[in-house]
């Protein structure tokens, strides 16, 4: 199986090739298919920018990147990538079910495979079975993010990009959603790139955590979490090894800031 992501000497910036301010410079990154990667870093280090390059929302200035063995454009056109934003980005005029079904209504022209309407199954899976006819403003923040995840999963993407998806939620809800996300990942085998500001969250959900430094963004710490965890990326938040890994990540993050 090819790697999910292979980036080599990746330069990314805003403002044109000549005058660009580089957000990422010479970034090398390989992500194995089916893995769960957490991305940590200070504000402005290019975490979200990296996700946007992978999702073909932004073109790199230099270097190469392949996603699932192809160009980001080919992968996006085939709808093999799902994106979850920090604010759930639900359309307020659509019911929960209609929001989850959005991928069935748009972009079908570029598809070569058929997407089934799994909205009922996904709503059940995310514990939203009874909320299908509600409007987004009638849900809590945590429920809205669950809807956004269900929508991202509707097309059965092989790659799920999550940009601080639980950043605006309270700690209890965030912990619960972390567990639900891990259960989902174990079940689907989707590769997940998970951007977060929280060291504890990154260490708990990630099989591997990278820390990016800012100005320009580059990888300054790459920590394999599997030795500290049981099979299936399982651990308890208070495990001594996890706490030690968090201290390691905090040191890297402080140096990077």
């Amino acid at each position, binding site marked *: 199986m090819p790697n999910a992501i292979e980036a080599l000497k990746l330069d990314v910036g805003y403002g044109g090739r000549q005058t660009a301010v580089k957000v990422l410079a010479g970034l090398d990154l390989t992500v194995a298919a089916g893995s769960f990667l957490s991305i940590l870093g200070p504000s402005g280090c290019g975490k979200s920018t990296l996700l946007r390059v992978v999702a*073909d*929302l932004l073109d790199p200035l230099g270097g190469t990147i392949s996603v699932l063995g192809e160009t980001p454009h080919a992968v996006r056109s085939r709808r093999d990538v799902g994106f979850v934003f920090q604010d759930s980005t639900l359309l307020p*005029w659509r019911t929960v079910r209609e929001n989850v079904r959005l991928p069935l209504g748009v*972009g079908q*022209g570029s598809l070569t495979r058929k997407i089934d309407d799994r909205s009922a199954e996904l709503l059940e899976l995310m514990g939203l079975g009874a909320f299908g006819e509600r409007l987004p403003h009638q849900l809590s923040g945590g429920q809205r993010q669950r809807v956004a995840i269900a929508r991202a999963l509707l097309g059965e993407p092989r790659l799920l990009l999550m940009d601080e998806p639980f950043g605006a939620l309270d700690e209890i809800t965030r912990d619960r959603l972390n567990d639900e996300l891990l259960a989902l990942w174990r079940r689907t085998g989707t590769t997940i790139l998970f951007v977060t500001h929280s060291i504890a969250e990154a260490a708990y959900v990630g099989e591997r955590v990278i820390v990016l430094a800012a100005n320009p963004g580059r990888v300054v710490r790459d920590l394999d979490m599997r030795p500290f965890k049981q099979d299936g990326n399982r651990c308890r938040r208070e495990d001594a090894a996890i706490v030690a890994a968090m201290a390691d990540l905090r040191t890297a993050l402080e140096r990077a800031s």
Partner: protein
Amino acid sequence: MRQTPLSPQMSIALPVLGAASILLAWQYLLPLLGVPAYIVPTPTAIFGVFQKNLALLIDNLRPTLIEALAGFVIGNLAAVLLAVLFVHSRTLQAAYFPIVLFFNTIPILALSPIIILIFGLGMTPKIVIAAVICFFPTLVNMIRGLDSAGDNEHELFRVLSATRSEIFWALRLPRALPMLFSSLRIASATAVIGAIVGEWIGSDKGLGALIIQATFNYQSDRLYAAIVLSSSLSIALFCIVVLIERRMIKY
């Protein structure tokens, strides 16, 4: 300090009582103060016009209603279509929006004689004036509305490989509806103003013409009745817009 909200009964009763107190003061206080009836007729005198001259009022309401409605539909439709064109072509917007802006600065009273010169004395110039007066606020609001989707929303549609037309129907247009309806609410009043202004300048039919005739003939009870009727027309249009808005926008 925040005041406690009114009970539902009180929030209906208080405006009714407020209006009743003003009508009573108007009916009994103004004659006592010596204000002559040819300047300010009493509410009962105005109501009397509705009893005596109902056919005349209805005959004059009909053309104003048609002109205001047609102007409302044409002006707003043109504004929506131009807004759609502008948001899809920044070149066209940059070239022509300043001209539309300049056109909007011409006072409608100055523009009306020109419109009547062009379109003659029938209903058409009144419809055009009503349409012109509705056009600009809807154009500006619709452009803003169509552009109001956030970056994340556009990125979401891009990740889904949505086409331009899908982005328009599934994102931009629904996003623009609240702003469109807020300008339609304003237009429901201004369309009637446009029709009446048109009738002032060149017509012998319609509420505008009736207002002018009643003023020159010192028939102030008839003048006030025409004003009440034109205001009722605006309110009716406003209520229809609000009803449609409530059906379409539920969030």
